[in-house]
């Protein structure tokens, strides 16, 4: 029996989204085949990893990852510059944690100042994330979009409960937008439809179907992502073609396996490697399922995933 390469061609294509400006601008998406199957399609852009930073010191991060930034995380500008200059970050994701009412409840105006400071200190593209408080994000992200006007940022996350004001702001200031739903392909589709019905261009959207950590629901995120990709590529469903985001770090660096010391659980081995590997493995699972953009925390985990991506393309 003669072997014939079983190629499948896709009728659809993942949308190409660019963000940032100047020679540091980046592109994600654009592929017309399932993840890394370059024998049957084109993959013009490699997945991008953004380094996550916060507007306040990351006191709630476990030591393994807090220590990696201990000299720079006192203020977001120093932290951002360190990621760009020392760690060679290609993109930075600034999370406005301090605005959460249960944290420091900083105002939208405070957030706008931080954003301007960070933007003027770096050249790589910036992703601006709220504190994931539905009501507060609706005002914070509006101010953020304005403060970052002209920088072609990605802002997020717009969710079912707050998308209207955030979409309007992203539209007015020409940013890209993350639409997040809760681990359900139909909810992801529905939110994309609602957003585009407001006149927002689908070619500026990024879908976040919600991440989950290795051992804590990774299989759900993995399969939702695979199904989104199959719908966009095989069935040519235009509402399922935006690039996919995996917000990995925040889900990983809270599970017990990234926190518990070796003396508490000797059978789990060294904590430093365990934490880094937990983040790297989660991220690898996501890119295999179709993620185009990752937000991660630990430099060593990011380095490992970059090497993995280099091997995949």
């Amino acid at each position, binding site marked *: 029996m003669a072997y014939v390469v079983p190629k499948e061609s896709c009728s659809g294509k993942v949308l190409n989204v660019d963000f940032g400006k100047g020679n540091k601008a980046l592109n994600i998406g654009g592929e017309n085949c399932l993840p890394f199957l370059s024998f049957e399609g084109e993959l013009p852009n490699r997945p991008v990893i953004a380094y996550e930073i916060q507007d306040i010191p990351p006191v709630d991060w476990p030591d393994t990852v807090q220590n990696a930034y201990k000299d720079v995380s006192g203020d977001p500008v120093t932290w951002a510059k360190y990621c760009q200059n020392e760690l060679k970050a290609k993109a930075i994701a600034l999370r406005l944690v301090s605005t959460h009412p249960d944290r420091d409840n900083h105002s939208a105006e405070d957030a706008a100042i931080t954003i301007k400071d960070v933007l003027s200190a770096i050249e790589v593209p910036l992703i601006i994330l709220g504190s994931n408080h539905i009501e507060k994000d609706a005002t914070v992200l509006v101010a953020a979009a304005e403060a970052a006007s002209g920088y072609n940022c990605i802002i997020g996350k717009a969710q079912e409960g707050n998308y209207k004001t955030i979409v309007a702001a992203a539209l007015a200031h020409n940013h890209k937008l993350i639409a997040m739903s809760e681990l359900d392909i139909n909810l992801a589709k529905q939110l994309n439809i609602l957003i585009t019905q407001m006149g927002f261009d689908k070619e500026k959207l990024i879908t976040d179907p919600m991440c989950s950590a290795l*051992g804590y629901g990774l299989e759900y995120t993995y399969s939702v992502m695979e199904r989104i990709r199959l719908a966009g590529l095989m069935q040519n469903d235009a509402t399922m073609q935006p690039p996919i985001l995996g917000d990995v770090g925040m889900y990983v660096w809270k599970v017990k396996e990234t926190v518990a010391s070796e003396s508490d659980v000797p059978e789990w081995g060294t904590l430093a490697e365990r934490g880094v590997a937990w983040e790297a493995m989660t991220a690898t699972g996501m890119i295999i399922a179709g993620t185009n953009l990752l937000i991660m925390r630990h430099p060593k985990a990011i380095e490992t995933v970059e090497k993995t991506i280099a091997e995949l393309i």
Partner: protein
Amino acid sequence: MALTGVQIFKFLPKTNCKKCGFPTCLAFAMALAQGKISLEKCPDVSEEAKKTLGEASAPPIRTFALGAGDNAVKLGGETVLFRHDKKFFNPCALAINIKDSLGDDELVENATWVATSELNRVGQKLRVDAISVEYASNNSAQYEKAVKLVAEKAPDAAIILNCKDAVAAEAAVKAIAARKPLIYAATNENADAMANIAKTHGVPLCASAQGLEALSALTEKLQGLGVNDIVLDSGAKTAKEIIEHNTQIRRSALKKGFKPLGFPVLNCVIREDSILEATIASVAIAKYASIVILSSIEKWKNLVLFTLRQNIYTDPQVPMQVEQKIYNIGEPTAESPLMITTNFSLTYFIVSGEIENSKVPSRLAVMDSEGLSVLTAWAAGKFTAAKIAQFIKDSGIEGQIKHKELIIPGQVAILSGALEDKLEGWKITVGPREANAIPTFLKGRVA
């Protein structure tokens, strides 16, 4: 490709003699088409029919065991490309590679680690499944000795003979024949000799070639030589080659019914950087490998790889669940605290583990919520005040304890008012939101 019952029926004797246990040949044919029974149950089937039907009714990816005994690992037998389409059935075996040129002490140390590597996660036992012994010494006697030593020190592990020298491989197979080692590998150069060894000793054989065309030709040759339990090594080295080759192999087998590639796949992912080795292994695990060979499996790596494999291989339709009942943790008395949670395995094992850590004997009431986590179950209306109250009443726990206090998960604090209304005479206490705060919480109550 699979045949229908009617197509199969044409090949049967049509005597309705019932010796197969079915009332008619047609009924037997229908059962055969659904894979419920094997053709051997009909004693009168002709040789010609056996040949035609045997090939057609064989599963698209052959299934057989790696190793022998209770811990043998089932390989192959997969039926889909994406886990959401049904599920992945036979979790990939993880193997550690050891060179025979290491000193005895190091061989023993590695083999002992494998023998004691068992971990428990979410109710499943996870362990390093196999040891690949590499023929690095170029000395057949040394190889045989190393293989024997490793096999003896890791009595439950499957053994992979990573050796292309037929003479050395044969001596090693003979030394541990009862363990049914996998020979790795037959190549174009040694195919005849290796096939002969595999056939004589009834052990599986890995076919190794560069690329899928050469590999198909090799497996056809091996089958022609009478070897059926074959593992595939396409020579994939980089993550890109792994994902592309493995995808093509699985597609060929499942969608094209291409028999020469209808076998389980082996990937060797050895890298210098141990964390990178783990991520490359995860590419192989997610994308269809049945055996992954690594250079090292430290404790942390053991845990991450097993967890990933467990995630990929869980049934996407049915979350892992535990039985609804009131579990005793430690030796609770009539005064001991009573807590409630849902029957999602992950939730149960995390919570019960933390209660154990607290060393405070307790009862944990686990309520059937169709395997959903606390918040998911609450959001889906399966962990409501009414249902919890009903469950507590029906459980008969009231007769067994002296107090009437129920501790609920902090994430569903919102339920406490309604629960106090529905469970008359009970006090509802809101516990911590995260399980890792349970030990402090429970110890604080005792003090």
